[in-house]
């Protein structure tokens, strides 16, 4: 049943295109909507069990020989995310029905969306590392497809490519970490690995594993400095941004860190990296959000900073911090989802998302404005009791102040954390307020592409539901706390502590921090004009987007330059590479292994005629080099060939001598035939450097060949097998000429293929001469 649930979106994705072709009257989204709603209902049935600590585990054997099985596991953490995915998924599909017109390629859109939904469910429910990785990459791919949905726009495709590059880079690093973890513990089941967490933490590879896995989590969850893909991913349709890039996919990294924190948490390295980068991302993201002018870009940087905040709390690792983290995941999904939808409505109804062109929309869009009010103020952590953002922000401040079981490093670093937390929150406050007031209040501009008006009711349903959740969660946090968050804290931390979320924290340092944020944020907002030049100056050249572009361009240019250096197109250069490597490899091997030996035993006696022939051949071979005339070179080459056949005579090889004689004659004839058509030798002398290189290389090759020859002759390891041929040639082959019997009888296959070679050469020559495409074209 659980497997069917995860499979359902994929199955639906398969049938959706058929429906799309068949049914034209009804918006395709209505059919799609059934899937997440069904799944949401199905996952709701698990809440009761999970609250009582009952975990569901279902296994389907996939590759049992490698221990890789599709095992789905429902505990508090997985269930929460599954509900988030299907719940927000339903709302987003509903919203998209009104957002996308029927003229769009809806079939593509919903197939990608369903693929993504199924992949995301697979990520959060998998118990197997490698199955998790499979679904993980599937989310990257479907996200890539969704960002590039309007593939005619260049920005969409480049944004899609960027997100793909960064998330896949992280995904591969993560796979490396997974393989190491599976190797160390001997199992690829996440529960099994958590049980053996000690082995990983104590292994020498632990820092590598941690960094590799965190690379995956940080790239997916857009942590500094990998956050740069998220603002560019805003080129996707707004429902996609709301679903993927605020509520679900970007939380996959959070999920991974939470899921594995039973292994890693408690180590100093984990604490430093996760909370350090989390806080850095929080501050940088919220600062960058203030400098943006596009609604979705503000929301993108805001998502980055909120993800940083959640990540930081996971890094803190205290019970309070983890409760605050999971609470904020829930809160962020509600208010950020609604804000994206609001931004989409504004875009849809006014034709622009540029905050400089917007203003005074409250009178035209009172409902949207009210929704935005709740969303933005909750995001800011405004101290109003009906905003859930305030509660989690309080808990965040609280958790940044208290650290348990502090080691020396934690003690040294942690006093700075509250300042970072407050600093990031001030900017969060500023951009949230800016988002609301600059869009909905003030004067209305004349230049809007469309006359603004209220959105259709269907488009408003989803944000209304989300905003209602914002308020409900704020009023009865404990209901959600017990049902969803306690089991989740249990899954992350291994124990459930105090999960009572206080409605009102009372007067304490956290409240003073909130008030400080409120006061400083308001002051910064009111004086924002004065700070414009600072905002413009600071990101300047330091932005991660520029670093990414520089890196990619550097890689492309660098590899092009490198390739241009060695891929010259010159045959001589390539031959030089080959020979130099030959010399280096054989030479080094021989000198290192002491391979060169010289042994004067068992040498044939030196006979004068043979030596004479050898001298003549050597002279002729060297003479070919110096011949100025091509015909002379060919004839001298002939001398080498005939000399060789004479040597064959002396070396008792009659068949060879015969063949060599004939072949040499035919070859020389061919050379002569050919030279008639070729121009004479180039009289131009090569430069001295080139010539010297040629000499050095060729002499080195010659010397090496000689050395190999002498060395191999001097080390005979075993007797030749030729006795067998000599003994059995007549008995088995019925012939006296042993060479011929070997050729046609013992090793007849060689001969057959050699005939094939000759045949092919002949055929090739024939076609080369006969087949002339150029001529043919002329005839046609």
């Amino acid at each position: 049943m659980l497997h069917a649930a995860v499979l359902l979106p994929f199955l639906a994705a398969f049938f959706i295109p058929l429906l799309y072709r068949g049914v034209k009257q009804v918006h395709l989204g209505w059919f799609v909507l059934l899937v997440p709603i069904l799944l949401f209902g199905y996952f709701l049935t698990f809440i009761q069990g999970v609250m009582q600590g009952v975990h569901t585990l279902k296994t389907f054997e996939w590759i049992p020989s490698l221990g890789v099985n599709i095992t789905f596991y429902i505990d508090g953490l997985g269930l929460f995310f599954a509900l988030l995915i299907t719940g927000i998924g339903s709302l987003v599909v509903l919203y998209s029905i009104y957002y996308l017109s029927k003229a769009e390629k809806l079939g593509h859109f919903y197939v990608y969306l369903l693929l993504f939904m199924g992949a995301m469910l697979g990520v959060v429910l998998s118990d197997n590392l490698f199955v998790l990785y499979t679904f993980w990459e599937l989310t990257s791919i479907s996200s890539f497809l969704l960002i590039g949905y309007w593939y005619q726009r260049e920005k969409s495709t480049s944004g899609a490519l960027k997100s793909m590059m960064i998330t896949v880079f992280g995904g591969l690093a993560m796979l490396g970490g997974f393989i190491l973890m599976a190797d160390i513990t001997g199992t690829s089941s996440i529960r099994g690995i958590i049980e053996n967490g000690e082995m990983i933490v104590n292994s020498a590879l632990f820092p590598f594993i941690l960094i590799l896995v965190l690379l995956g989590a940080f790239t997916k969850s857009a942590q500094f400095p990998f956050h740069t893909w998220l603002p560019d991913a805003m080129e996707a349709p707004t429902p996609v941004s709301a679903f993927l890039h605020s509520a679900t996919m970007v939380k996959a990294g959070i999920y991974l860190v939470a899921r594995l924190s039973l292994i890693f948490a408690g180590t100093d390295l984990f604490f430093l990296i996760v909370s350090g980068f989390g806080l850095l991302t929080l501050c940088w993201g919220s600062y960058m959000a203030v400098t943006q002018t596009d609604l979705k870009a503000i929301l993108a940087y805001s998502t980055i900073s909120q993800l940083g905040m959640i990540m930081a709390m996971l890094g803190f690792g205290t019970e309070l911090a983890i409760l605050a983290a999971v609470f904020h995941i829930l809160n962020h999904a509600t208010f950020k989802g609604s804000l994206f939808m609001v931004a989409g409505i504004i875009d849809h109804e006014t034709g622009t998302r540029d905050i400089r062109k917007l203003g005074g929309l409250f009178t035209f869009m009172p409902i949207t404005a009210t929704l935005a009010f709740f969303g933005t103020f909750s995001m800011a952590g405004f101290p109003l009791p009906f905003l859930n953002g305030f509660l989690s922000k309080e808990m965040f401040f609280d958790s940044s102040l208290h650290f348990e079981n502090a080691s020396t490093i934690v003690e040294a670093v942690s006093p700075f954390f509250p300042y970072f937390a407050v600093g990031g929150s001030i900017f969060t406050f500023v951009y949230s307020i800016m988002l609301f007031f600059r869009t909905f209040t003030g004067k209305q501009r004349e230049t809007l592409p469309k006359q603004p008006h209220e959105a259709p009711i269907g488009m408003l349903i989803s944000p209304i539901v989300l905003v209602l959740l914002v308020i409900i969660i704020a009023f009865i946090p404990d209901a959600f706390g017990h049902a969803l968050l306690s089991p989740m804290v249990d899954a992350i931390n291994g124990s459930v502590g105090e999960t009572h979320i206080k409605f009102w924290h009372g007067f304490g340092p956290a409240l003073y921090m909130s008030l400080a944020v409120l006061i400083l944020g308001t002051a910064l907002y009111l004086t924002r004009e004065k700070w414009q030049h600072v905002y413009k100056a600071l990101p300047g050249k330091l932005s991660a987007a520029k670093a990414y572009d520089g890196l990619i361009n550097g890689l492309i240019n660098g590899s092009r330059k490198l390739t241009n250096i060695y891929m010259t197109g010159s045959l001589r250069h390539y031959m030089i590479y080959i020979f130099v490597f030959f010399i280096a490899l054989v030479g080094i091997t021989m000198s290192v292994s002491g391979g060169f030996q010289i042994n004067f035993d068992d040498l044939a006696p030196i006979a004068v005629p043979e030596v004479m022939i050898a001298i003549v051949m050597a002279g002729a071979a060297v003479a070919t080099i110096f011949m100025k005339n091509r015909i002379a070179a060919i004839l001298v080459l002939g001398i080498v060939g005939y000399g060789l056949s004479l040597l064959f005579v002396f070396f008792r090889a009659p068949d060879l001598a015969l063949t060599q004689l004939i072949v040499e004659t035919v070859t020389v004839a061919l050379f002569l035939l050919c030279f008639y058509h070729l121009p004479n030798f180039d009289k131009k002398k090569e430069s001295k450097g080139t010539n010297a290189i040629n000499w050095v290389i060729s002499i080195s090759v010659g010397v090496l060949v000689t050395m190999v020859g002498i060395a191999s002759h001097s080390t005979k390891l075993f007797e030749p097998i030729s006795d067998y041929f000599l003994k059995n040639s007549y008995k088995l082959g019925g012939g006296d000429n042993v060479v011929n019997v070997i050729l046609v009888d013992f090793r007849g296959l060689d001969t057959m293929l050699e005939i094939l070679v000759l045949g092919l050469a002949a055929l090739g020559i024939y076609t080369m001469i006969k087949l002339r495409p150029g001529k043919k074209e002329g005839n046609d």
Partner: protein
Amino acid sequence: MEIIMSVLAGILFTAGVYMILQKQILKIIIGTALLSHGAHLFIITMGKLNRGKPPILSEGVTNYADPLPQALILTSIVISFGVTSFLLVLAYRTYQTNGTDNMEKLRGNDNE
């Protein structure tokens, strides 16, 4: 004798490699021909030279030259002949089509 033949094979290789590093096609083909001569000489030297009669069975002879390298070389000669003749016709056609036999000029545009 084997050492002298190894040296001779080395010289043939030297000349062959030198010719292959030239620019003109005909020189390169001469280089490959020299290389194959060198290789054949190398193979026969790797068996034992001048031990016994030619490997044709006859009464009263017990010591023959090693027949296996000879069979290998015979195959190799034929194959290198096939390749050389193919190369020669290829050179002829290359020159006819491109109007040059200089490999440096045949390498195409640098700015492609």
